[in-house]
Each structure stands twice: as C-alpha cells, then as structure tokens.
C-alpha cells in the first residue's frame, strides 16, 4: 500500500534514554500488538457489522426474494419499473431539492438575527431543542398540529380564524337540513332560497322554513307574527314553521321568527336590488323599492359553513395532474403531505443549521467586517460581499449534512403520515424497510433499494474525503 502524504503531524523521534536504563526498547512486534489491541475492537465491529454486510447487500441485490436464485439486474429493473418505488424516489428527490436549501437559508437568517439580540442563548436553546426529540415523537407532535378539524389542529384553527373573518360563516350554518315549507319558496342551486311569487310595493311575504333544530334558532328569537302591510314597502317574516299540531305554511302560535336572516330583494332580471336582515321576530322590511316586481331570496350566506380545515397530511397534489394517465399522475403529483412533512422536519433541523452557522459567524474575522464598514459598505453590502463568501464553507457543511439526512429520512414519515397518504408520501428508506421486513419480505428487491440509496451518498463520501484531506 502506498503511503499517503501524512494528514497527521509527524511524530517527534523517540529518544532512547540510556542513562537511566530507560524503558525497554519497543520492537516492531510490540508496536503491532499495541495497534492490534487499540484498533482491534473497532476494526472487528466495523468489518463485521458495517463493511462486510454492506458488500453482502450489494451481492444480495442480485438474487431473488428468498436468495436462492441469481437474477442479475432483475431487481433493479423491477425497482425502476414499479410506480410505488418510483414515487418513493420522487419524494426523496423533492426532499433533497427543497429541504437543504430551506434549512440552510433559515439557519443563516436565524444565525444573523440572533447576533443582534441580548437573549440569543435563550432563542437558540428553543430552536435547537427539537433535535433532542426523537423523529418519531416529532411525527406525533406534528400530527396533532396538523389535525384537519379547526377545533383541534392549531394551524387549521389559525387559518380558519382568518378565513372566517373575511368570509364569515352563516348564522344558520349548523342547520344542515333546512328546507322551505311555504310552497312559494324554492331552493336555489347556490344553497339559498327564493320565492317564486313576485311582489311589488305594499305586498307581504311569509317565508317558512323547517328542518332547524330548536338549539340552532338564535337566542332571543321572539314569536313570529303575520306581517302587516306597509304602503311603499315590501314586508314579511321568516320563521321556523314547526310546532306540534301546527299547519305547514301557516304561522301558528308559539312558532319563532328567525332573526339575523340575510335577505335579498331580486329584481325581475335576477339582480339584487336591496338587502336587509330580519329582526328578533323574523320580520323584515324593504323600504321604498322602485316600482316593479320583485322576488325575495334567503341569501346562501346564511347557511355558509365555517372553514372546515385543510387536510395537511392528505394527497391533494400541488401540481396540476388532470389529463395525465394513472402512472404519470402518480409520478408527477406533489402531495401536500410531502410539504407538511418537510415543514415538520424544518422545525427539527433549523436549530442545527443556526448553531453551526452561528459558530461560523462568531469565528469570522471581525477586522475584515469592520474594514468593510469603514469603507462605507452598507450592512447588506457587507453581508453580501464579505460575510457570505467567508461563510460559504460552513454553509456547504450544513447543506451536505442535510442532503445525507434527507436521503435517509424514515421515522418521521412513519409517524406523521397517516395510512391514507402513506404510498403517496413514501420515501426510499421507508420503502426499503417495508419491502424487506414487512409483508412480502422481498430481500432481493429491498437490498437493491438499499444499494440505490448508497449510490446516492457516494458523491458525498468523496466530497467529505476531499474536504477533510484539505
């Protein structure tokens, strides 16, 4: 074996101590024995559990599922012919493209910002902390965060608050079985209702509704009264047309008006001429509409459901896939679950990036930065042309570490992604485990996938060796 230029500093030559008799001279044999004893345990373990098995996996990937028959490259052909496996590879590709860039960027931003605050240690501790938590527990944590029901999931709750503010849910949203009971009122396709009878000034309308549970009638509602005519106005009442022994379409005693109902006055051409809202007894009044014939409509907004929550861990695709065949659709879609898992993983690793980049920042030569400032560079110019180039080696370390990390991603997908999205959000390491250790136990195919994963990290091996040898 050729000797490499030594990476370790040359040793000082041993000086034999003659005067005192000194230590017995160590022969070559003794030195070898020492090397054997010190290096031995590590060498045996690495040889038996890492190096030999890794080579054996390469060999195993050329045999069939039970290992009895040599099949050449069949497993690799199966690998790249299986949609499920290709989807797993596609997802790893998404992870590799998106995740390292984001982590490095956010880590850099955090590192730069924390340099300017007094409580940077506290901030770093908080952001760094998730690294101590198992990725499996992280999956459980984020599954709770991502709950679809806005009453349970904190993200959907926040999104729901915003959506409902700008797009308020109807006060009768809970009454999902609501139906008109007066013959002149019919349901419209948008979810609202409109009277079929035309009205003009001085007319009245009675709009009866059924299918509303008593608890869905707003508190404070008073008994409905037959509307009084008013000259120059269209008046009417909207009421809950249900009472024991009552007649449908008639306001019986004790039937409540429906307050807060948004009504539209529709012109003959269907456009909205006026709007109003019912009072506590369900009565309404359109004052002085221009002469003409109108219809009254119960606006769909009354029944609009509140924000129902986004299924963050679902398979809805972020890329358009309509018009594609089944296989192409499976391969070209980007399920939302991928992105949600990436966000959860960012929560874990941004602290790492921040700490490593922060250490790099602290090690920078302050004089260079000061010189830039003295020369009149703005803060951004200093960062862009001085700090950033000096930090590049550190950023590359973080970036590469994240690539390796993401290639091996396993636990978090297993814990976070529900069964219903599992295949769509699968990744190589998880698929490899499933192929080899669950169900079918196809050890040949599983080995082939492990080898594929290994091939992906080979460039990193060379990069690291180059970096470490300088």
């Amino acid at each position, binding site marked *: *074996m050729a000797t490499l230029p030594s990476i370790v500093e040359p040793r000082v030559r041993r000086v034999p101590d003659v005067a005192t008799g000194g230590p017995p001279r160590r022969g070559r044999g003794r030195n070898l024995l020492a090397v054997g004893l010190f290096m031995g345990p590590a060498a045996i373990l690495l040889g038996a559990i890492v190096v030999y098995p890794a080579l054996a*996996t390469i060999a195993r990937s050329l045999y069939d599922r039970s290992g009895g028959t040599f099949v050449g490259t069949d497993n690799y052909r199966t690998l790249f012919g299986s949609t499920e496996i290709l989807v797993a590879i596609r997802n790893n590709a998404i992870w590799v493209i998106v995740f390292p860039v984001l982590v490095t960027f956010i880590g850099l931003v955090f590192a730069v910002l924390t340099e300017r605050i007094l409580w940077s240690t506290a901030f770093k501790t908080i952001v760094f902390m998730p690294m101590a938590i*198992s990725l*499996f527990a992280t999956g459980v944590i984020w599954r709770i*965060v991502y709950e679809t029901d806005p009453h*349970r999931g904190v993200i959907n709750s926040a999104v729901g608050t915003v959506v409902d503010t700008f797009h308020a849910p109807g006060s009768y949203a809970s009454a999902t079985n609501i139906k008109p009971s007066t013959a002149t009122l019919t349901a419209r396709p948008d979810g609202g209702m409109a009277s079929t009878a035309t009205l003009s000034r001085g007319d009245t309308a009675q709009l009866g509704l059924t299918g509303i549970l008593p608890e869905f009638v707003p508190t404070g509602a008073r008994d409905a009264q037959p509307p009084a005519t008013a000259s120059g106005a269209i008046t009417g009442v909207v009421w809950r047309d249900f009472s024991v022994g009552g007649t449908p379409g008639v306001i019986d005693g004790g039937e409540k008006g429906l307050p807060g109902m948004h009504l539209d006055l529709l012109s003959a051409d269907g456009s909205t001429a006026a709007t109003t809202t019912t009072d506590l007894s369900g009565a309404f009044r359109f004052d002085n509409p221009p002469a003409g014939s109108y219809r009254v409509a119960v606006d769909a907004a009354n029944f609009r459901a509140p924000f129902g929550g986004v299924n963050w861990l679902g398979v809805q695709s972020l890329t358009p896939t309509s018009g594609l065949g089944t296989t192409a659709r499976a391969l070209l879609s980007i399920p939302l679950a991928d992105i949600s898992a990436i966000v959860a993983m960012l929560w874990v690793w941004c602290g790492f990036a921040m700490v490593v980049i922060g250490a790099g920042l602290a090690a920078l030569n302050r004089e260079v930065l000061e010189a830039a400032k003295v020369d009149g560079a703005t803060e951004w110019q200093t960062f862009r042309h001085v700090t950033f180039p000096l930090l590049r080696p550190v950023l590359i370390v973080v970036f590469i570490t994240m690539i390796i990390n993401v*290639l091996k991603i396993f636990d978090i997908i297993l814990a976070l992604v529900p069964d219903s999205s599992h295949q769509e959000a699968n990744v190589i390491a998880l698929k490899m485990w499933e192929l080899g250790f669950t169900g079918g136990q196809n050890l040949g195919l599983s080995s082939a996938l*492990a080898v594929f994963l290994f091939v992906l990290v080979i460039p990193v091996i060379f990069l*690291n060796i180059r970096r470490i040898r300088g």
Partner: protein
Amino acid sequence: MTSTALPSASAPAPAAVETPRAPRGARLRRVLNRTTLNVVLVAIGLLWLLPTVGLLVTSFRTNTDYFSSGWWQGLTHPAALTIQAYKDIIHSSGLVNALVTTVLITVPATLLVVLIASLAAYSLVFLRWRGRDWVFILLVALMVVPLQMALIPVATMYKWIHDTLGLQLFGTVAGVVIYHVAFGLPFAIFLMRNFYAGIPKDLLEAARIDGAGEWMMFRRIVLPLGKPALASLAIFQFLWVWNDLLVSLVFNSGNPNQPFTVFIFSQIRQFGANIEFFSTASFISMVIPLAVFFAFQRSFVRGVLAGAVK
C-alpha cells in the same frame, strides 16, 4: 473541521464596535429596528415552542376533550386537565418494560462506543503504523454509509450465529447494541481522533521516556485530556440510540425486548382513536432526552459543531 476550529456557539458574540454617532433620525430608526427584530424573534420562539406545548397539554387531556376542542382550550380550562393517562400508561406493564429496554440498549451502546472509539482514535493519532491514513479515510467514507445498507446481511448473520453457536442476537438487546455501536463508531472515532490530534505530542514523549506503556499513557494522559470530547460524543450517541426506531424495529420488534420507540410505534394504527396514549407516551419518551439536552447543552453543541458531517 476540527472541534477546536469553531468556538462554542453559546459563547457571547463579540460586542458590537462603537460606530460614530449617527444623526438623531438614524438612531431612532435603529431603535425601532431593534424593537421589531426582538418582537419578530419572540414570535418565532413562541412558534417553535408551540408544537411541543401542544403535545404536553394534549397529554393532560382526555380523549373526549381532544375530540371536542383544541388543546389550547385546556390552558383556559385547567380544571379539565388530568394526569389519568399518565397513571394508566405507567400501570400498563408494556411501558415500563419498554423504558427499561431502552435504557438497557442506550447505556451500553453509549459506553461501548465511547470506549472503543477512544482506543481506536489513540492508535490513529499516537501509534505509528502502516496504512493508518488509509484507515482514517475509510472511516470518513463509512461515516455517511446509510445504516440501511447492512440490515439484511446482519439479520442473516445473527440467525447464522444462533444456528451455529447457539448465541441469540436477533430479537435481543445485545443484537441491537452491537449494531448501534458499529454504526456509531466511524463518527465517534473521527470526532475523538480530531480531538486527540490537538494534544501536544511532547506530553506523551515525556511519559514514554519515563517508562509508561501505551495503555498507561492512554489511561493517565489521553483519556483525562479527552474528557470534553468524550462528553460530547457520549451525549450525541445517547440521544441517537435513545431516539432510534429503525434498528430496533428490524432486530427487536414484536417481542418483550422492544424499546420505547417500537412500543409506541406498535400502536400507531390506533392514532386517531387513542390520542391520550400517543401524546402521553411520546411525552414520556421525550423527557430523558430533553433533560440530557438541557443539562449538557454545551457539550451537545460542541459535539454538533465537531461532527457536522454525520
């Protein structure tokens, strides 16, 4: 990168150098900027804490409460919080067994890696032998080999050892420990070697002249000097093994020797129905790693910085 090249991240950043007095408007803008920055970072910090707090509060609520309202309602209605789930889970024998198994795996796997790696690193730095530079390069290469690469042959090997020697490794704590130690070694040796390379050789030469053997020098000089690196390594390895799921899932699932992560995983299909169990068990699994993290944060950060290549 060596462990000594980068100062600890928790070291205070050098004080900002005084700049010439800025006009009043600029100074006001700077104060405002600083306020904005602090507000933004406080918000980010709270955001970062939110998921963990959510899990913690959820673990103190009943299943019924979980389905009827968000965990944040638990903060305003503390009376509804209960430790019942913790009581239930601790009284179920599965959890205690799994916790004990996790400790039985983690402690030996950590100690063995620390010991074996320091020995190997000693021989890489202080003993002169042919090919040691090649061995070091091989170690750097092995550092990124995915542990998935060895699962199938090692499982086969464990079965073969059982059939020929009668020694059961598959499905035992020992089998998992061996796997973790082996895959922890490349990084561990790399870390320790870099640290030992910073120890002045003269120290050892002096001892050698005084007649100390290699073992003596390792025990009396190198090991004590290497303590900071050993601590970093131990914490790293501890967290890594404690939090592992895959290795135990392959070698140790579905039997009484399954560790905590596998124990929780085995119930994952009931996630929707039994959030009480998941939140509580997950939180219990986090307690020790978090305690280790907070107690030895400095060492942990040092390890992260020294081994940012793993």
